[in-house]
């Protein structure tokens, strides 16, 4: 679970990318959930950051989702078409690890 800051722009997106990728490199991550409950602003850098993480996880069959998205952030996500790749929902849906 990643808690997204109040404003997700290029500045904060690169900080999240660094931290999340450090965790991803350790392996064992199959699902990433970005919690937008505290986020009021997002621009295309946020879209880039989410798509980048989707690409990384998608290779190993992992999933990326976004929860608690407000109307504004939702509009940006719809406009960019990212919802086709990233699940947007109210609450986190944890997918059981397939054995």
């Amino acid at each position, binding site marked *: 679970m990643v808690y997204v800051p109040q404003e997700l722009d290029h500045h904060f997106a690169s900080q999240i990318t660094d931290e999340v990728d450090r965790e991803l490199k350790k392996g064992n991550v199959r699902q990433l959930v970005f919690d937008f409950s505290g986020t009021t602003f997002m*621009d295309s850098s946020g879209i880039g950051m989410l798509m980048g993480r989707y690409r990384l996880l998608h290779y190993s069959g992992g999933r990326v989702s976004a929860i608690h998205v407000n109307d504004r952030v939702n509009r940006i996500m719809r406009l960019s078409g990212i919802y086709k790749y990233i699940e947007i929902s109210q609450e986190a849906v944890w997918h059981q690890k397939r054995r």
Partner: protein
Amino acid sequence: MENTNEMTLEMDSRSCNEGLARITVAAFATQLNPTLEEVADIKTAVSEAITNCIVHAYEKETEKIRIDCTICGRELTVAVTDHGRGIENVEKAMEPMFTTKPEQDRSGMGFAFMEAFMDMLEVESEPGKGTVVRMKKKIGTGSQVFE
């Protein structure tokens, strides 16, 4: 008397200034009594223009970005000027999803968002000299203007 006003902000091309830029322009626009939706539109468009300057125009260099805002009647004009590398092919750069930096997680949606959230977008660029991005938006058409 016609309602006109001007504001210029010049700042370093550091990513920590992106928030300052969009909040300053949004605050300047409040005299037009915008809706929350319009404020959010302006903030997104300014954020995209500034990010382009930092990521593309100046890359790793720290140089100056200038933002000129003008209000004329109900119309807000925002011009973002850099003296960075410039854009070889403006038409191509403005295509949605086109980016020269996919490895840096750039979505290629910057100009598309500026176009979507503002009424007019104009890009003038000369390789090696810099770029001016000019955007216009009519604000608060249904509300009173603060003078």
